[in-house]
């Protein structure tokens, strides 16, 4: 187990970082480049420290010096191209494991890194353990694709006038993208940060701004920051731009920054930040740990909120004026989130990736407490229910979210999450959606812990953790206290048991160490004779994403005499539970009925009596007897949501109605509303209408009731009496007394009724008449609302309201009656649709002249137009959306337009649009938009693995493969999005549209000639697959010899580097295959392949060195002819063999085969190696014919492996036996 008891933190590195200087001398907005240096102060912890591995991506490194001595270095990043060369594999299983291996190979948490520096021998020969080393690295970044984002608007003026700015971003630990560092959350050090920027700009970074000094020419200034609190590199950030500065009026150590012209919005938006501060400081009884706090609002933000040590970067789109209602709670939530992460996430960092859930859990939990305090208990419970529903749905769909994966001892075979198409071993291999759900589950589990040990203890634990950390933070490095600032699962659990004295082991085991949720089915019967409620609770723990629950469960029974809680024990085999009823069946009609909260209410019990007269009711679950004799009003299972569960409970419609009307808990009300959808009766209608009108009722419940009422009305269509649902209600609430067809002039001072006013038309538009059309009356009603909308006297903006009215119009649309597939023209436009289109045109055009906040109206209009197209009212055409999707529109508009294009792509199966979208994924300047396109494509895919489509062709497979293989190496999130999309389209195995590889192989076997399957491009085939084969061969060799899974090897590798520089292990071979090819080479990349050319013991002139290697990179690499093993002088890259292959049981069977292959390769490599550099581009064609056979052979081999290792292998028709 990796949950070591009371063990302190053990660094995976042979040294400890204590201080780092980051100095960026120049930021060029025109060229989007950055030049600077870093200096890391490290204490070796082993006697002979001869290699230092650091994280660095996409930086061009000019020179490295250790204690003023030039040091040779190697820069190798296997994640640039995950699978090498034009492999024809195209199998996601294969990719995923290769990707995991690649990420693991440079994972700083495991002590690895892309940059390997050889400590000059003069230094390590001294062998003094506590001798400080200073590693000085000069680097530059040119047009960075990740890590730093430049926003440079294309207008007149200097950079400051144009509002150009740059900021750091990334998903999880991504600081290595913009400066070399130890990019791990567990390596803390103090910081000195210096940024020299144009005099008109401000550089905002972590820590205290000590001073700002002009350069000698007075055109630039240098911002000097010092961060004395030990902080991990991933928590360092930077934002530079012509920001407007606002010192918080309530807290002068807090400074806010926004882009020019937005200061008024910033002032308003930030006016309540101090309350959040006060709240957190109060509940944690701990002062904010940093001496200052900065908020920066930037354009084209990667995520809405990102927290770093003592600063947070937000999307500028969170800013709003006082007139905006809907954005206000959203923004406040974002601020609260950012601030909670300052305490847990930035100040207290995680020990390892598997401890991430603790930090996300705590920050999410205290954020929840803030929600409860600010927005009220109803909002909080509603939010918890929403989150619970989300996680339940996700887990049931995908098969589970595991909070604390135990990656012990390299037993990779026991993949904890075999149901997922990605590995959860590293943050960077996770799908984004999974990560979001992970965070969601984490805070829900924290809440479960709170339920168990009480909030008081919970806060004590947090306080304890914080005070330990703040004591540690003020210590010098030498005191070895800094690891107190790292939080681990075991540390957290220990703290809990110390503080509360309670054992939460079972809870942790259930929800943290294990994935899945619980699925309950409940039903009941009332036994009149025994006056007992017979409750039956069954579980489904066999379907994916579920788990078995054993333990207590709370059941609340509302009887006539009051509400009673019962705690039942869910055990292995007991399904039935008898609960004695308290009430005598004879009701006293006059008596008030006490509720759970002590309130006593009068209820109209006639519904119950009517039910009684119907006597017995038979349901699928058996007979239950209700009626005049039953004292049961309603029953709730697990009302406090203290289990991560889904409950499907059966009770009679009148019981749901009582629950809706009289239960005071919003969660119960919402559950009742969703249950009532199945009971379209006048009684349900009445209950919903009453709730709608009741002003004490939580507004979100009322909003939900609107939609339920619409559904019920549609089900009751034939028996519905009176005006359309909600119409008279709306009229009564929002229209003028004297003229009921005209809505009052807007006054949104009462937010509850504002939200209701917004929602009711949208729900009403869902009503349908017998012809399945939206009733004319309703449509006219909505059109009148638009017509008479008058906002002149309102102090709030009505943009969201108007947008929802357009949404209502959209909802009213039904498919056009299509006569003989004619082309849609203006003339045959339906008259109602004409009216709708008229409104949409006017709104959309007005928006150009008077844009609304966040262009909400344009967004709604675009959706409406797409709906018109989809329903066949107007010709389907993506060009309008494509123009709105261009860079330069507001991001919400772009996303809405892209959503329409995505939808068009699916409906019209347009390869052109799909291509257009994929081009945008590769080229759009905004990272968020790129991510959004892929995630929308994933949600609404043009086709899926289950369906046939003309779009599914080899070119698309190649394109997507390339995208995830090498095209997205600068953005972890995007790469995972691409993987997700690939999975949605093709599944885990080889895409079906690709030619059967065996076909080509069989031919080869028989003819031994270069007859290729015509669908495989010859040149691709020439190179293809060899990298994969190498991997294969490697794995094959390994398995029989070592018998160890690769991760073990990785673990002991750091201790292994030989002092003489001779490679001990064959696994280095694989590295060589990893020369990036086909992807634009990164400026400096030294792969093991070139090692023979690097004299590690001499000092290189950096420039010459770089160019030399750049040239080398440009030649096509021929994997079949790698230099021999001996050249692995600097073997520092651990091998990353594919687990799938290694653990392949059949591998041993093939072992010999591989050996042979390997030697074969080996020889060839030696042979070819000599003339390698001379031939460069040429040899490929020369040797082509010769190589082809070999290649094909390997191809076959590899495919055979791929299939046996894939989960589908058992079923695969393309059995490897063919090749044997």
């Amino acid at each position, binding site marked *: 187990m990796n949950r070591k008891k009371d063990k302190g933190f053990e660094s995976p590195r042979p040294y400890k970082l204590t201080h780092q200087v980051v100095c960026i001398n120049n930021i060029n907005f025109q060229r989007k480049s950055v030049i600077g240096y870093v200096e890391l102060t490290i204490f070796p912890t082993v006697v002979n420290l001869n290699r230092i591995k650091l994280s660095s991506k996409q930086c061009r490194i000019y020179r490295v010096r250790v204690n003023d001595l030039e040091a040779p270095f190697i820069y190798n990043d296997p994640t640039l191209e995950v699978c090498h060369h034009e492999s024809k594999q195209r199998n996601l299983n294969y990719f995923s494991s290769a990707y995991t291996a690649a990420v693991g190979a440079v994972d700083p948490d495991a002590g690895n890194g892309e940059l390997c520096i050889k400590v000059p021998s003069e230094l390590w020969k001294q062998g003094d353990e506590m001798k400080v080393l200073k590693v000085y690295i000069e680097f530059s970044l040119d047009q960075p694709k990740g890590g730093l984002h430049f926003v440079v*608007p*294309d207008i007149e003026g200097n950079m400051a006038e144009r509002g150009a700015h740059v900021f750091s971003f990334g998903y999880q630990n991504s600081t290595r993208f913009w400066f070399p560092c130890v990019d791990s959350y567990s390596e803390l050090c103090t910081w000195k940060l210096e940024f020299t920027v144009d*005099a008109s700009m401000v550089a905002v970074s972590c820590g*205290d*701004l*000590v001073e*700002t*000094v*002009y350069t000698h020419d*007075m055109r630039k200034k240098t911002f000097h920051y010092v961060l004395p609190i030990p902080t991990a590199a991933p928590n360092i950030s930077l934002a530079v731009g012509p920001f407007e*500065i606002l*010192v918080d*009026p309530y807290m*002068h150590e807090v*400074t806010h920054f926004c*882009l020019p012209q937005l200061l*008024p*919005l910033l002032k*308003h938006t930030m*006016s309540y930040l101090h309350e959040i501060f006060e709240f957190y400081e109060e509940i944690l009884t701990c002062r904010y740990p940093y001496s*200052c706090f900065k908020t920066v609002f930037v*354009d084209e933000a990667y995520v809405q909120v990102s927290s770093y040590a003592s600063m947070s970067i937000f999307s*500028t*789109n969170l800013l709003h*004026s006082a*007139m905006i209602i809907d954005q206000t709670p959203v923004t406040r939530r974002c601020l609260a989130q950012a601030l909670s992460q300052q305490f847990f996430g930035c100040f207290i960092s995680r020990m390892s990736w598997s401890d991430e859930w603790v930090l996300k859990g705590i920050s999410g939990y205290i954020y929840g407490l803030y929600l409860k305090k600010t927005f009220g208990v109803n909002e909080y419970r509603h939010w918890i229910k929403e989150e619970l529903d989300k996680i339940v749905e996700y887990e049931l769909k995908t098969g589970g979210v595991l909070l604390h994966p135990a990656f012990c001892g390299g037993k990779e075979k026991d993949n904890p999450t075999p149901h997922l198409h990605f590995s959860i071993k590293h943050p960077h291999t996770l799908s984004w959606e999974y990560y979001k759900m992970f965070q969601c589950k984490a805070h829900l589990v924290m809440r479960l812990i709170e339920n168990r040990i009480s909030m008081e203890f919970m806060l004590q634990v947090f306080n304890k953790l914080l005070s330990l950390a703040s004591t540690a933070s003020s210590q010098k490095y030498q005191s070895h206290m800094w690891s107190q600032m790292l939080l681990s699962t075991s540390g957290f659990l220990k703290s809990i048991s110390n503080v509360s004295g309670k054992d939460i082991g079972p809870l942790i085991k259930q929800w943290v160490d294990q994935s899945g949720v619980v699925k309950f089915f409940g039903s009941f019967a009332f036994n009149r004779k025994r006056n007992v409620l017979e409750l039956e609770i069954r579980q489904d723990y066999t379907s994916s994403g579920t788990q078995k629950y054993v333990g207590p469960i709370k059941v609340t029974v509302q009887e006539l005499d009051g509400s009673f809680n019962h705690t039942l024990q869910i055990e292995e085999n007991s399904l039935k539970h008898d609960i004695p009823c308290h009430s005598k069946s004879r009701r006293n009609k006059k008596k008030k009925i006490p509720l759970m909260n002590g309130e006593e209410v009068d209820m109209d019990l006639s519904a119950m009596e009517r039910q009684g007269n119907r006597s017995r009711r038979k349901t699928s679950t058996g007979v239950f007897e209700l009626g005049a004799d039953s004292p049961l009003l309603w029953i709730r299972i697990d009302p406090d949501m203290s289990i991560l569960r889904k409950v499907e409970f059966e009770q009679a419609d009148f019981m749901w109605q009582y629950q809706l009307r009289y239960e005071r808990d919003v969660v119960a009300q919402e559950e009742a509303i969703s249950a009532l959808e199945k009971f379209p009766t006048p009684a349900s209608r009445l209950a919903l209408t009453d709730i709608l009108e009741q002003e004490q009722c939580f507004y979100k419940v009322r909003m939900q009731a609107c939609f339920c009422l619409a559904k019920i009305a549609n089900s009751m269509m034939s028996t519905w009496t009176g005006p359309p649902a909600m119409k008279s209600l709306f009229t009564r609430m929002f229209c*003028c007394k*004297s*003229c009921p067809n*005209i809505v009052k002039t807007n006054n949104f001072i009462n937010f509850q009724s504002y939200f209701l006013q917004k929602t009711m038309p949208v729900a009403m538009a869902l009503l349908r008449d017998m012809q399945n059309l939206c009733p004319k009356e309703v449509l006219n009603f909505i059109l009148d609302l638009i*017509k*008479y909308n*008058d906002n*002149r006297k*309102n*102090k709030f*903006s009505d943009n969201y309201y108007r947008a929802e009215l357009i949404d209502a119009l959209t909802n009213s649309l039904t498919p056009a009656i299509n006569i003989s597939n004619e*082309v849609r*023209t*203006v*003339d045959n436009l339906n008259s109602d649709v004409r009216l709708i289109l008229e409104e949409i*045109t*006017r709104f*959309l*055009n*007005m928006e*150009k*002249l*008077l*844009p609304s*906040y966040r*262009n909400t109206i344009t967004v709604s209009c675009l959706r409406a137009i797409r709906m018109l197209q989809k329903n066949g009212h107007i*010709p389907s*055409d993506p*060009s*309008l959306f494509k123009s709105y999707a*261009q860079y*330069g*529109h*507001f991001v919400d508009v772009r996303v809405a337009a892209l959503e329409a294009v995505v939808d068009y792509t699916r409906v019209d199966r347009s390869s052109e649009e799909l291509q257009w979208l994929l081009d945008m994924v590769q080229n759009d300047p905004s990272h968020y938009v790129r991510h959004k396109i892929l995630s929308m494509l994933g949600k609404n895919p043009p086709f899926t693995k289950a369906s046939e489509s003309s779009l599914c062709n080899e070119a698309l497979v190649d394109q997507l493969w390339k995208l995830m293989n090498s095209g997205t190496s600068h953005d972890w999130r995007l790469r995972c999005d691409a993987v997700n999309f690939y999975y949605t389209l093709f599944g885990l195995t080889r895409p079906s549209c690709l030619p059967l590889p065996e076909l080509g192989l069989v031919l080869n076997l028989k003819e031994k000639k270069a007859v290729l399957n015509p669908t495989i491009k010859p040149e691709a085939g020439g190179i293809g697959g060899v990298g994969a084969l190498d991997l294969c061969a490697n794995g094959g060799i390994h398995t029989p010899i070592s018998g160890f899974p690769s991760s073990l090897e990785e673990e002991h590798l750091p201790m292994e580097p030989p002092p003489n520089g001779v490679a001990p292990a064959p696994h280095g071979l694989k590295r060589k295959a990893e020369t990036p090819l086909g992807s634009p080479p990164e400026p400096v990349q030294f792969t093991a392949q070139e090692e023979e050319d690097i004299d590690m013991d001499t000092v290189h002139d950096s420039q010459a060195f770089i160019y030399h290697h750049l040239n080398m990179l440009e030649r096509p690499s021929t994997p079949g002819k790698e230099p021999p093993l001996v050249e692995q002088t600097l073997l520092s890259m651990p091998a990353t063999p594919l687990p799938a292959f290694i653990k392949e049981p059949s591998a041993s069977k093939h072992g010999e085969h591989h050996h042979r292959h390997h030697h074969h390769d080996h020889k060839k490599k030696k042979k070819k190696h000599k003339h390698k550099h001379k031939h460069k581009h040429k040899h490929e064609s020369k040797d082509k014919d010769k190589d082809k056979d070999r290649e094909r052979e390997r191809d076959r081999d590899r495919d055979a492996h791929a299939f046996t290792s894939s989960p589908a292998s058992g079923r695969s028709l393309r059995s490897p036996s063919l090749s044997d």
Partner: protein
Amino acid sequence: FIGTSLPSHWNLQSGLRSGSGKTTTSPAENYYLARRRTLQVVVSSLLTECGFESAEKAAVESLTEMIQSYISEVGRSAKSYCEHTARSTPTLSDVVVTLIEMGFNVDTLPTYAKRSQRMVITAPPVTNSPVVPKALAAGQKRVHPPYIPSHLPDFPDPHTYIKTPTFREPVSDYQVLREKAASQRRDVERALTRFMAKTGETQSLFKDDITAFPLIAARPSSIPYLNALLPSELELQTLEETDSSEQDDQTDNENAPTGADKENSVLPPGGVVPAVKPSEETVIDNPYLRPVKKPKVRRKK
């Protein structure tokens, strides 16, 4: 002559005043003419006294004019002296001083008045002093409040300061009004957007008829977030209007119409802090507000 002329002088003056004030009112004109006629008689008798037998009308007119001017000037001047000494009614001494000031030898006056050959003319017919036309009887004339000394001038006529709004019967039918406002706005919007669409680039939803439902073409902007986030001018205007109307109701103690401050004032802790804020503002020590330092000379590298 003096005996009769002095009161006549006063009357004359007031007549003149009223005459100059209201040029065409006939009672005042009559009154004025009657005075003039008396003066003419006086001039004529003086001429007779001096031995003239006849005089041209024009000469008499001129002399009348002169004597009228002279008397007027005496009256005006005497009133000035009187007011100079903070009185409201002139006394004999005022007149005497005036006459002296005008270069008239007062000592000769008693002898002249007692001359033997003087003619006695009949007093002018008693004409009712012109009734000051009843100005618009709007409201009650206000009396001085107790703290204003009674000698100070009365309040002017109420009609000069009481506003009497006049209005047409408003269109009271709310429905019609809303209808009108809605259709008016819609017409304006439609005309405007049509115009914009006609004059600029457009996009169309239909291929067969690109003029139906023209959409103003989407044009990317360099800084899209500005338009999307900042309130439009129209909205700002509305905000100001609603703000000012609200502040009328309240007693606004702050001159900060921004929404932010307003919202704060609702919150209990927020209400207190801004009061302290201005004084503190001067001592805020924020590193970002500090002046940028000059480079040190000894910087190496």
